[in-house]
């Protein structure tokens, strides 16, 4: 009995720091979502500030911003998900063809390198290309093509494309690794018998590799759908240099919440947008996992 009690005490002692951390970092803010229903007045404190019901949400959804940031978040993510999967599959299939170990490893390292770089440094790299005064495009490429300089950070039109390139550059290596891992898991015997039947490489890819990747694609697609309400804050905030002229094409839920809180000091609007994101995000993750449990129970989170 006493040894069992001693065991329990040791167990709780081990868990204590970790549990305390999750309590403070995750659970206290969860309880703090009531802020979205208050009109915060720092002079009287958060707890004494009056409740105003759904007024903050009412304000938020009356602005055109609500639709804009929702649309941007969803459309950008959808574009990223689809292209990430397509590119990931193609590059993984091709990378798998490279049999020289050195070449294969070097390519893999080169593709992974961008992901090790923070978005701050990525914003420097992008700036080196796009800066209006001395960027590579304005100083070297456009003059060579006989075109006039473009003030990239104030011209919205090319930005969806720029953001897509940066996002792909940043994540292609990871997507490739994910699909490469599934390709390596495919039974070699399938390829050997196909070869005996006279199927060439193209046919092997089309009739063996791609069908075998289907379940990975579906799982990855669904997991990404569950996260579609969250955007990469750094990508949308730092890469466009937080330029006001680009807000129409670069504002997402995450940048909106940040700007409303830190730049406009509008706690009501910011917390309303944040809670909107959390709740819809929560519903999405739950529904995706319920679906996933039917499709592929092994990869469902619960």
């Amino acid at each position, binding site marked *: 009995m006493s040894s069992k009690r001693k065991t329990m005490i040791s167990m709780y002692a081990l868990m204590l720091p970790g549990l305390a951390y999750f309590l403070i970092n995750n659970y206290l803010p969860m309880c703090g979502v009531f802020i979205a229903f208050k009109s915060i007045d720092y002079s009287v404190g958060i707890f004494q500030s009056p409740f105003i019901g759904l007024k903050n949400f009412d304000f938020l959804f009356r602005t055109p911003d609500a639709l804009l940031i929702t649309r941007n978040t969803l459309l950008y993510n959808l574009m990223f998900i689809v292209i990430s999967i397509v590119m990931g599959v193609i590059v993984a299939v091709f990378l798998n063809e490279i049999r020289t170990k050195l070449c294969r490893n070097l390519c893999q390292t080169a593709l992974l390198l961008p992901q090790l770089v923070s978005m701050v440094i990525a914003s420097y790299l992008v700036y080196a290309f796009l800066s209006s005064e001395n960027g590579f495009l304005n100083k*070297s490429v456009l003059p060579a093509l006989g075109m006039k300089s473009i003030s990239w950070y104030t011209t919205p039109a090319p930005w969806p494309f720029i953001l897509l390139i940066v996002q792909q550059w940043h994540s292609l290596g990871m997507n490739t690794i994910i699909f490469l891992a599934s390709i390596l898991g495919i039974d070699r015997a399938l390829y050997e018998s196909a070869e005996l039947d006279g199927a060439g490489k193209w046919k092997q890819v089309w009739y063996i590799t791609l069908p075998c990747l289907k379940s990975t694609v579906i799982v990855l697609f669904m997991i990404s759908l569950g996260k579609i309400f969250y955007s990469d804050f750094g990508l949308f905030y730092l890469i466009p240099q937080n330029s006001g002229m680009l807000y129409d094409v670069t504002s997402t839920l995450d940048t909106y919440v940040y700007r409303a809180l830190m730049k406009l000091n509008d706690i009501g609007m910011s917390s309303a947008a944040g809670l909107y994101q959390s709740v819809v995000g929560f519903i999405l993750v739950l529904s995706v996992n319920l679906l996933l449990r039917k499709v592929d129970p092994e990869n469902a989170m619960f």
Partner: protein
Amino acid sequence: MKKSDLGFRSIAHFCVIFLSLLALTPFVLLISSSFTSERALIADGYRFFPKEFSLEAYQYISSNSDTIAHAYLVTIFISSLGTAASLAFTSMLAYPLSRKDFTHRRVFSFLVFFTMLFNGGLVPSYIMWTQLVGIKNTYWALLLPNLLMNAFHVILVKNYFSTSIPESIIEASRIDGASEIRIFISIVLPLSKPIMATIGLMTLLRYWNDWTNGLYFVTKQKYFSIQVLLNNIMQNIQFLLNSSSLPGANVKVTSIPSASVRMAIAVLGILPIVIVFPFFQKYYIKGIALGSVKG
């Protein structure tokens, strides 16, 4: 080999090598700019080959190194402390959750897991850390919020403990009279090096590259990490001019190589990662494979 197979091979090689080179081009532009004289940068812009090779950016950094060296030290200090603490707390939490004879493990596992599904969002979290805990402008601000522990890592380690460490070893040492904490430290942890290396690397990278905590919670330069410093410079390009404490601080604006210095600092921010990465790539790839399915 068939002719079409040769075509396939060639296309595959061409595409992968082309994309790999493309992935590296921004780095070449960055490094090249950091070795270009400021005059050439202003005249010809950022280029892939320095038109006027010069070390002035790096010389400037080494003679004005206070701010940058301090930020660098902050990054190293926070990253190593944070990673060590994270590994310790994560494994300490994961171990009881992995033990089948620990009765409350389901409740606590769920509490950890739930943090992956729902979060309170930026505003409550910001208000709590600044008003309740008061970490604005302290080193804690870089260390604690969001980075220290990750529910997904706890679950990974828990699964590793329960699948890769034979229960019989734990049982045997218990019969020998070893205490739980002793079993954890001298038996379980040494057997868990692979998973520790993987999540340690992931955590280290997250700390090294983090700039958001600095953005939210830090305004004083004393607490800037290298990423926060870089972000700040980008926001305020005049920054280095103001902080220049050279004896000849009244040098003309044009002679201060700000554009190339910025690029040189960015190079210094990437360099350690690039040097160390090839040795740890194995663990990184394992981390991606583990995270791809459930992360």
